[in-house]
């Protein structure tokens, strides 16, 4: 066994927490992270101050209430409640009990007859919405008189809803799904949301009619894997399976402007805004990509792909055996053990990115505070990699 070859392989290898991670969410100060190892369990780890180094994390709780794979987790930063949803067609709201040092679940009946695919807390944390394969989006709120969560369902979708996000005003959601459309809905609930107009009345006249389609976009021309709403509330983005990301500028008094950016590599599965002018996207490429506003005006921005976050470490490729005997030996062992064409260096054939499989979920933190300072990615390789925003030099 060539020790140098193994050294190259393990250098900078992030700790693998599970075989695959389907979803994850952080608490407000990043002292805890909740994730699902692609089964019916939710694991909560304490970072003990080492946010970037998963090998130092300590697993504190295993929550296994769900009857099937957990497909979505979201953590409300202020109320500290976790909401999870899964293939068992249920959602649970978890509240931390100090006395018992445990998380107590409350079942939320969603009235869907297919799996839930994603869940997000609203900005004020008094509602959450669940995307589902039942072609609908239940919006749940807490009814204090009965001490339980009840839901009101948004329909109008023609196929599985794959992703959703909330507008900062707590009233609207944007959804994307397998019917290849991205739609904006009103999720306004009387008694929960303030009835005063907050400025969006000019843009969406039907803003206070629950379940009403306020806007619809079809420029993805393919399954919409992920949707996101900018922190300022006037921009949207959605990513399609056709390796494209469409950016929407919402304007008062005129139709929204849509700009579709074609990406040269593989499609994205999750996108999140890092600020009003920048967005991170990750997916089948295993490498997060950053899109920024590179031109245009505030009202008509021009977006483009700027950079990929994971950069190939060119220094390590020269670390390969200095001696010709060692180099030949490495080449032989690579051919025998990996099926690499003889002569091709090991670095060219192995996966150089930090993630060794597709990235399926991103979490930006600090949650609901902008501009973001870090974001974490997780996916089918079972690793959670934390990235710093500062080195990206965003405007």
């Amino acid at each position, binding site marked *: 066994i060539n020790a140098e070859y193994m050294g190259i392989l393990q250098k900078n290898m992030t700790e693998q927490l599970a075989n695959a991670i389907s979803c994850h969410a952080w608490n407000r100060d990043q002292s805890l992270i909740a994730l699902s190892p692609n089964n019916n369990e939710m694991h909560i780890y304490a970072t003990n101050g080492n946010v970037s180094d998963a090998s130092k994390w300590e697993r504190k709780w295993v929550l296994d209430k769900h009857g099937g794979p957990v497909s979505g987790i979201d953590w409300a930063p202020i109320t500290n409640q976790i909401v999870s949803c899964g293939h068992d067609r249920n959602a649970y709201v978890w509240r931390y009990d100090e006395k018992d040092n445990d998380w107590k679940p409350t079942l939320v009946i969603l009235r869907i007859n297919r799996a839930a695919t994603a869940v997000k807390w609203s900005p004020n944390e008094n509602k959450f919405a669940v995307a589902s394969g039942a072609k609908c989006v239940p919006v749940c709120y807490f009814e204090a008189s009965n001490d339980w969560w009840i839901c009101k369902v948004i329909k109008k979708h023609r196929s599985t809803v794959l992703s959703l996000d909330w507008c900062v005003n707590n009233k609207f959601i944007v959804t994307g799904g397998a019917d290849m459309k991205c739609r904006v809905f009103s999720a306004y609930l009387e008694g929960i949301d303030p009835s005063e107009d907050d400025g969006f009345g000019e843009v969406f006249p039907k803003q206070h009619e629950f379940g009403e389609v306020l806007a619809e976009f079809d420029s993805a*021309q393919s*399954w919409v894997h992920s949707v996101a709403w900018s922190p300022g509330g006037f921009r949207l983005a959605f990513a399609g399976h056709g390796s494209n990301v469409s950016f929407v500028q919402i304007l008062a008094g005129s139709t929204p402007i849509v700009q579709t950016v074609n990406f*040269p590599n593989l499609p994205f599965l999750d996108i999140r805004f890092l600020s009003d002018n920048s967005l991170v996207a990750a997916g089948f490429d295993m490498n997060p990509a950053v899109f920024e506003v590179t031109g245009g005006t505030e009202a008509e921005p021009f977006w483009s792909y700027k950079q990929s976050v994971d950069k190939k470490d060119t220094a390590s490729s020269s670390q390969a055996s200095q001696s010709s005997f060692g180099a030949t030996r490495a080449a032989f062992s690579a051919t025998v053990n990996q099926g690499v064409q003889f002569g091709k260096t090991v670095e060219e054939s192995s996966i150089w990115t930090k993630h060794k499989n597709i990235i399926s979920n991103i979490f930006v933190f600090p949650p609901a505070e902008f501009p973001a300072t870090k974001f974490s990615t997780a996916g089918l390789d079972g690793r959670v990699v934390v990235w710093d925003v500062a080195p990206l030099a965003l405007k």
Partner: protein
Amino acid sequence: MADEAEISKSLNQINTESSSLISRGDFLRALQVALNNPAKNSKNQELKDLAANTIVAALSAVKEADIQKIIDALSQDERTQTMKYVYRGMGFGQNCNLLLKWHQALTDKDGVGVIMRTLVDTKV
């Protein structure tokens, strides 16, 4: 839904124009004219095949050495459309050697993303 008869008429016109541009040696214009067709709005497979044949004819008329020049002159949307019809052309089975050269040049320019956009298109 657009009128099938109108689409048919439009496609025939495009076919004629594209053929004459090919015979005059203006391969870039021939391709651009052929790409700008309404076949995706039609539900008629014959009309879609007609549009595809026109475009593949334009692609096949280009010499291998000129492919890169033409690709550099096309817009990104036109390149995506071209890739879709390269695959259609390979489905017909003729000139595959040349079509593979088109495929290589388009992939060099737009990456595997352009192949993804081809795969998700159900209307070509």
